[in-house]
């Protein structure tokens, strides 16, 4: 574990930026058609439930990284193996996000640039950042968060003042019944992006004010969940369900629609900065958590030594991960959820909690 402390506000910012990260890029929960926003809100509520599993586990072992307490719960060797698989999972998600971003950039703005170079540049930035450790990442997050807010709010103002929004596109509510919405929650939004916040279990021990954790987490989740839902409402009401589901990056299509005073048009390039911030953050957090976890498992004395080699691995796998973008999205939203996300984010933590509960029955956990 790094010898670092982060403040409650820094954790808040990191969670919010993380949740935004890639989720704002992709056509999230579009399976629910115009009720996608509802699906996102419900996913958020599901995310709270998941949080309470992680939170209880954290309360049993507040000073330990999950890689450490897993070994306490299910024994040293199985614990190490499980933790290692979790780290592989985080690296996998990091590669996926890098691919998401690179593909977005290549298709939208740099059709002539090779994906590899685009990804490599971002990866170099992340490697540079992570060498400084979690504290610098947290501080960077604070600064970028303000920039992020500034740009998103101004984008919102521009969209609404250019008269593109047509709320009738959102009707009828619950056209395909409640089950269709619930299905996208169960299949998609619960895991991406809300369940993905399981990485923060590796960050919790750094928090300097333990008591604020619950409040910070819930408020950050609410902020990002509602904003994502709101972004989806805007997307659908500007583009319509059909266009949103066909667009690879609905948010960019929406921004491109802005045309104001015959001067402000094609603003997607400005908006690029927001997307870079979001992805940078998500990628950095996955990567950092994976690196610190691996360092903990293998007892590497200087975790910063791991950053460069792991960065190259993530870079390479971000290219190999799928032959085409369509395949990539298919894999991410359909396959990965059932076979990877569900067990990793829900089942295993729940089982761990049950075991931990029985193991710690005698010793009292910190009051919740």
């Amino acid at each position, binding site marked *: 574990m790094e010898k670092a402390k982060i*403040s409650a*506000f*820094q954790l808040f910012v990191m969670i919010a930026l993380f949740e935004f990260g890639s989720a704002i890029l992709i056509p999230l929960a579009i399976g629910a058609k115009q009720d996608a926003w509802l699906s996102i809100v419900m996913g958020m509520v599901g995310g709270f439930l998941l949080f309470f599993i992680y939170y209880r586990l954290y309360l049993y072992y507040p000073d330990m990284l999950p890689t450490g307490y897993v070994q306490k719960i299910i024994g040293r060797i199985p614990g190490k193996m499980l933790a290692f698989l979790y780290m592989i999972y985080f690296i996998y998600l990091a590669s996926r996000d890098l691919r998401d971003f690179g593909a977005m*950039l290549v298709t939208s*703005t*740099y059709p002539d*640039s090779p994906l590899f170079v*685009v990804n490599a*540049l*971002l990866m170099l*930035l992340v490697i*540079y*950042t992570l060498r*400084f450790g979690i504290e*610098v990442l*947290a*501080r*960077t*997050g*604070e*600064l*970028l968060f*303000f920039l992020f807010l500034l740009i998103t709010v101004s984008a919102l103002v521009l969209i609404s003042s250019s008269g593109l929004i047509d709320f009738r596109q959102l009707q009828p509510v619950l056209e395909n019944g409640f089950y269709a919405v619930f299905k996208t929650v169960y299949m998609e939004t619960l895991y991406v992006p809300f369940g993905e916040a399981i990485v923060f279990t590796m960050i919790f021990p750094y928090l300097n004010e333990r008591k604020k954790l619950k409040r910070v987490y819930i408020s950050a989740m609410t902020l990002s969940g509602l904003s994502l839902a709101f972004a989806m409402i805007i997307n659908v009401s500007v583009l319509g369900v059909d266009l949103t589901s066909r667009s690879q990056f609905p948010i960019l299509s929406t921004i491109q629609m802005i045309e104001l005073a*015959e*001067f402000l*048009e*094609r*603003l997607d*390039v*400005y908006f*690029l*900065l927001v997307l*870079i*911030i979001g992805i*940078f953050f998500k990628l950095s957090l996955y990567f950092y958590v994976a690196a610190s976890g691996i360092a903990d498992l293998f007892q590497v004395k200087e975790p910063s030594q791991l950053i460069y080699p792991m960065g190259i691995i993530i870079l390479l796998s971000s290219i190999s991960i799928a032959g085409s973008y369509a395949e990539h999205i298919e894999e991410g939203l359909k396959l990965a959820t059932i076979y990877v996300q569900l067990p990793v984010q829900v089942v295993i933590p729940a089982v761990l909690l049950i075991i931990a509960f029985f193991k710690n029955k005698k010793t009292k956990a910190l009051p919740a």
Partner: protein
Amino acid sequence: MKSFFKRRKTAVRAKQSSGSEDLIPSSLSANLDTIRQKTGYSPDIIIRTLSIGHYKAAVVYTDGLIDSVPIQESLLEPLLKHEALPKPLPPDEALPIIARQSIALGSIQFTKKYEEAILAVVGGDAVLFMDGTSTAVITDVKGGERRSIQEASTQVSVRGPKEGFTESMATNIALIRRMIHNPNVWVETMKVGKQTKTDVAVMYINGLVSEEVLGEVRRRLKKINMDGVLESGYVEQLIEDETFTPFPTIINTERPDIVTANLLEGRVAIIVNGTPFVLLAPAVFVQFFQSAEDYYSRFDIATAIRMLRVLVFLISLIGPAVYIAATTFHQEMIPTGLLIIVAAQRDNVPFPAFVEALIMEITFEILREAGVRMPKAIGSTVSIVGALVIGQAAVQAGIVSPAMVIIVSITAITSFATPSYSIAMSARLLRFLFMGAAASFGFYGVALIFMAMIVHLCSLRSFGVPYMSPLAPFIAKNVGDTFIRLPLLFSKNRPRLFGHSNPTRSERGQEYDHSVPKGMVNKKTVEGETNET
């Protein structure tokens, strides 16, 4: 090999330190001979022999470093007029009595050490030696020609005190003391530089300063191991946290009011003799966008101007880069009307935008450097050459486009509009990095370099204090005085990270007593009564 050098070094040091233990020989003639010999018979070392009563004595000083009036009136005259002591005493006992009775100077000091005495001579003191004793009297008669107090040339302000620091450390300390009449303003001095033995003073307000920062400053100053310290820039470079960064992590200023304000925030001032630039540590990034005048003018204007400065800094960083990125990669984001104009201009230009920008930026840097180093008389020539040849002729010849000239001019002006010279210099350098990134990857490149810059800024620390505080880490109490300035009423907290020994500036806030109503205090002048006049 390395260890061999090390051993030799320590041996030399040991020799030197044993040399400084040498005592002053009691024979005056032997003494003076050594002094002549040690100073290489330099004619500016003045040795005036005199007799005080029946004792033989000599006053030694360096010509030009002393003030000749006190040396004549307060030292030589009374000594020569000194009446013989009632009973003959051995010189050892007589010297203190004579010194007490006849030296009409504020500061005198006795020493037996030869090294100390000779350092005092070359440092601008006059030293009195007497035959038969190994004690010498060091008298402070420092003076000589110096620049008088003038208006600060680098940080000019419309409103606020006009005095600027001078090259004399004593004057500078006095200028600060004139602003804070407080016994808690403490000064510590030390000598830095093996050969130059430059005086360095550390100044702080006891009780407000953070002990950790102060300790760190002391520790780092003591670790300086250099033969010469000629300007505070040497000290700055040797004690800063991070050498490999384009950003300054220590502030320098020429203005006593800025130093005073920073002392009150709990910072430490480092004053180096021989330069008007005083260092302040720890520094944070936002400080480089603040000028003393912000606090003297009203808060709304100050806030607006600070915002403007941030904008200026950003333009000076990424102005040309945005132009390059927009014209080479993202033509679609330029409004059509503007695009036609720019494209028509660029049509004749034989270079890509990046080369064009590079030519113009480098030309400008050359002009600027020439303008700074040149004799003033030739200045106007350069500006004519710059304006006509480079601006107009280059455009007419079709080498650069007019739009590029505009961009370069704007960045040129912005780099002068930043209140701190040192932060403008960092922007000047980084601009080229941004231009390169824009030329190779458009906005994506610019955004990445920008983020890398932010990460770098967040990773910096100045004497342990995060450079981007109070923005990152976000400290709500201190945000009132960053890129915005809230009314003084609200800024009642010292910076939390290093002003924590005494966190609040005043109980109620920096304002007047609220028990007095702020409206019309005079009851007779309530609204209505004076309204008709």
